[in-house]
C-alpha cells in the first residue's frame, strides 16, 4: 500500500508540489509549536491564527491582488495586531488571559467573515478563493506558493537556530534570562513573530480554523517521548511533517476532503498514541507501574500480617487461617497468595491455612526493619 502511495506521488507533479509544501509547513510548525507549547502559549496560536483572517480579506480588498505574498503579509499584520490586543487587554485590565484570547479570536474572526462576505460579492472578485483560508486546501498550492513557503520557512528556521540558546533560556528560566541582562522583550517579540510566521505559512494548507492544532499537536506528541528540547524540536518537526504530508495528500486524492481537518485528525491520532504508549511517560506504563506497586504493597502486607500473627506463637512457622488475615485487612488475598507461594515465601495447607516458610520469615522481618527505618526517618 505504501508503494502504491509512493508511486502515486512520484508520478504526479501536482501531488509533489502539495507534498513538498506540506513537508515544509510540518517542519516549521512542529519546531515553533514546541516553543508555543512549552511556554504555555498553545491557545495564543489559536487566537493568532483566527486573527489573521481579516488581514487576508483586507489585503485583498485594498490591493485587489490575490498573490499569496500580499495576502500573507496582510495575515501577518493582522495576526500581530491580534497578539498585541491580547497582551494589552491582559496587562491593563482585569479581564484574564483566557477571556482576552477568546475575545480576540472570535471578534477578529467575525470581522474577517464580514470582509470575506463583502469580497465575495464584489463584481471583480471572480471567486477570489478566500474560502480556502478557512479550512485550507492543499490541492490549490502552486509552485510559487511553495517557493515562498520555502523562503519564509528558511528564514524562520535560521533565526531559530541562530538564537537557539536564548530561546531555550527564555522558555525555561525567564528570570535567569532577565538577570543575565538579555533583552527579554525583544526575544519575546521575536519568538512570537516566528510563531506568527509559522501560522501564516499554514493558512493556505490548513486554514485559520485549525492552524492551532498544527502548532500544538506535534509538540504535545513529541513532549511525551523526550525531556530534551533539541530532541523535542526535531521529533515535533518530523511528526508534524509526516502528518501534514499524509493529510495533504489524502485530501488531494479524495474528493470533498478539506485539508485542515484531515491533517488535524492524523495529528490527533499521533498525540493519542504518544500519550498512551511513549516510553516512561506513556499512560499505559503509568497504569502498569501503579498496578505493580499495588500488588507489591499488598503482598508485603500479607507477609507483615503473617509475621505479626506468628510472633504470638512459639513456632513462627505455624499455619494460621486465612480468615484471620482477612480481618487484619490484607487485600486481594487469593490473587497475591499464589504469587507468594510461587516465590517460596508462604506455604498453603488444607482448610484455608497459611504459614510462612523460613525464607518468607526472613523476608517479612527484613520488610519490617525497612518499614521501621523509614518510620524513624520521618
Amino acid at each position, binding site marked *: 500500500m505504501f508503494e502504491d502511495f509512493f508511486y502515486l506521488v512520484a508520478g504526479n507533479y501536482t501531488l509533489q508540489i502539495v507534498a513538498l509544501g506540506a513537508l515544509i509547513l510540518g517542519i516549521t510548525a512542529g519546531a515553533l509549536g514546541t516553543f508555543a507549547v512549552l511556554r504555555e502559549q498553545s491557545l495564543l496560536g489559536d487566537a493568532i491564527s483566527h486573527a489573521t483572517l481579516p488581514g487576508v480579506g483586507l489585503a485583498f480588498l485594498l490591493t485587489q491582488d490575490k498573490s499569496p505574498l500580499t495576502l500573507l503579509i496582510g495575515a501577518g499584520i493582522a495576526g500581530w495586531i491580534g497578539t498585541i490586543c491580547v497582551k494589552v487587554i491582559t496587562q491593563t485590565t482585569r479581564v484574564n488571559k483566557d477571556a482576552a484570547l*477568546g*475575545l480576540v479570536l472570535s471578534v477578529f474572526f467575525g470581522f474577517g467573515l464580514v470582509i470575506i462576505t463583502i469580497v465575495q460579492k464584489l463584481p471583480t472578485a471572480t471567486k477570489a478563493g478566500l474560502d480556502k483560508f478557512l479550512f485550507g486546501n492543499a490541492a490549490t498550492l502552486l509552485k510559487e506558493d511553495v517557493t515562498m513557503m520555502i523562503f519564509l520557512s528558511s528564514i524562520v528556521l535560521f533565526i531559530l537556530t541562530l538564537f537557539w540558546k536564548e530561546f531555550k533560556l527564555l522558555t525555561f528560566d525567564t528570570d535567569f534570562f532577565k538577570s543575565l541582562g538579555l533583552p527579554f522583550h525583544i526575544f519575546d517579540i521575536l519568538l512570537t513573530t516566528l510563531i506568527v510566521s509559522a501560522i501564516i505559512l499554514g493558512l493556505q494548507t490548513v486554514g485559520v480554523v485549525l492552524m492551532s492544532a498544527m502548532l500544538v499537536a506535534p509538540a504535545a506528541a513529541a513532549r511525551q517521548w523526550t525531556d530534551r528540547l533539541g530532541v523535542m524540536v526535531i521529533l515535533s518537526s518530523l511528526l508534524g511533517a509526516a502528518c501534514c504530508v499524509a493529510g495533504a495528500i489524502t485530501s488531494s486524492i479524495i474528493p470533498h476532503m478539506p485539508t485542515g481537518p484531515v491533517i488535524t485528525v492524523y495529528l490527533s491520532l499521533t498525540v493519542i498514541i504518544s500519550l498512551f504508549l511513549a516510553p516512561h511517560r506513556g499512560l499505559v506504563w503509568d497504569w502498569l507501574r501503579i498496578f505493580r506497586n499495588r500488588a507489591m504493597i499488598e503482598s508485603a502486607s500479607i507477609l507483615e500480617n503473617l509475621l505479626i500473627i506468628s510472633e504470638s506463637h512459639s513456632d513462627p512457622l505455624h499455619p494460621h487461617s486465612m480468615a484471620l488475615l482477612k480481618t487484619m485487612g490484607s487485600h486481594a488475598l487469593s490473587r497475591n497468595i499464589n504469587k507468594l507461594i510461587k516465590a517460596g515465601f508462604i506455604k498453603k495447607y488444607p482448610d484455608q491455612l497459611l504459614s510462612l516458610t523460613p525464607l518468607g520469615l526472613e523476608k517479612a522481618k527484613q520488610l519490617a526493619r525497612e518499614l521501621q527505618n523509614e518510620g524513624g526517618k520521618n
Partner: protein
Amino acid sequence: MSPSIEIMILASLVAVTCALPGVFLVLRRISLMSDAISHAILLGIVVVFFIVKDLSSPLLVLGATITGVLTVTVTELLIRTQKVKKDTAIGLVFPFLFSIGVILLNKYASSIHLDADCILFGEIGFAPFNRMIIGGVDLGPVGTWLMSAVLFLNITFITIFYKELKLATFDSALAAALGFAPVLLHYALMSLVSVTAVGAFENVGSILVVALIIAPAATAYLLTDRLSVMLILSAIIGVAAAISGYWLAYILDANIAGSMATMCGVIFFLVFIFAPEHGWLARQFFRRFSKWDFAKDILTVHLLQAELNHADHTEQIVSHMTDHMLWNNDFTIEVIGRCLQDGTVLQEGDKLILTNYGREKAKISFLKG
C-alpha cells in the same frame, strides 16, 4: 412582522442567551471552554443527524449537548494526567472532534442543508423562512421559539442557583466546604453552555458563538463590581451588539453573525477606553492625579519634619527642594504652586511655611505612611 425585525429579535435573543452563562465563564476564568464546546458540538450534531435524519429533532440538541459536556470531561481528564498543560489540553481535544465533524459533514452530507458555510457563518438571515405553524396559525420563526426556550432555561438555572453559582465562582473552596458541590455546579454550567451553543449554532455558527459568550461579559466586567449588575449589563451589551451588528451587516451587505461579533469587539474597545473606573482614560487620569497628590504629600511631610527638627529653616528653602527630593526645577515649581493653591503652604521670600491646615494634612499623610 417584517423579516428584519424578526431577525433582530432573534439576534437579540441569541445574544442575551449567550451573554448570561458567559458572565460565569469570564469570572471563573474558563472562557475558552466555550470555544472548545462550541466547536465540539458540531460532531454531536452531525452524528445525531446521521442517525435521526432530521435537522429539527430534539435529539439533535441532546446529542450535541452530550458532546459538549464530554469535551469538557475529556479535556479535564487529560489535564489531570499531567502529561500536557491546561492550555495544550484544550488546544488538542476540540480541534480533533471538530475536524471529525467537518470531515463527516463534507463527505456524507454535502447534499443536505447543513454545510461548511453554515458551521462558520450561521444562517440567521434565513431564520424567518423557517416558520412555526401550529394548526394553521403562523407563530413566527422556529429559531425564535428554540432560542426563547434556551434563554428561559438559562434564566431559570441562574435564578435558582444564583447563590450557589456566586459562591462557587468567587470562593470555590468555601463552596466545597459548605457542601455546595462545586464540581457538580461546574458541570451543570458546562451543560448550560453546551445547550446555549447548540441553540445558537444554527444562527451564528460555531466560532462566533464565542464572541457572543465572552465579549459582553468581559465588557461588563470592566464596568461593574457586582455580579447581578454584570449579568444585566452583559445582556444589554449583547442586545446592543446584536442590533447594531444587524444594521452594520445591512449597510455593508455582509454576514450578520460576523457583524454581530465585530460590534461586540467595537463595544468592548469603547468600554476599554472610556469605562469610568477600569477604562484606559480613567486610569491615565488617575495615574496623573496620583502623581501630583504624592508629590504634594511628600512636600508637606518634608516641611513638617523640617519644622520639628531644624530651627535654622535651611530645609525650608525653595531651592533646597530640588536637591533634597531630586525633583527637577519645573516640577518643584509646579508642586509648590499646587500646594499654594490648596492652601497647605505659604511662601515668604524663598522660604516655605506650612499653614495650620497644611500641618494637619501633613500629619495625616505621614500617619497613613
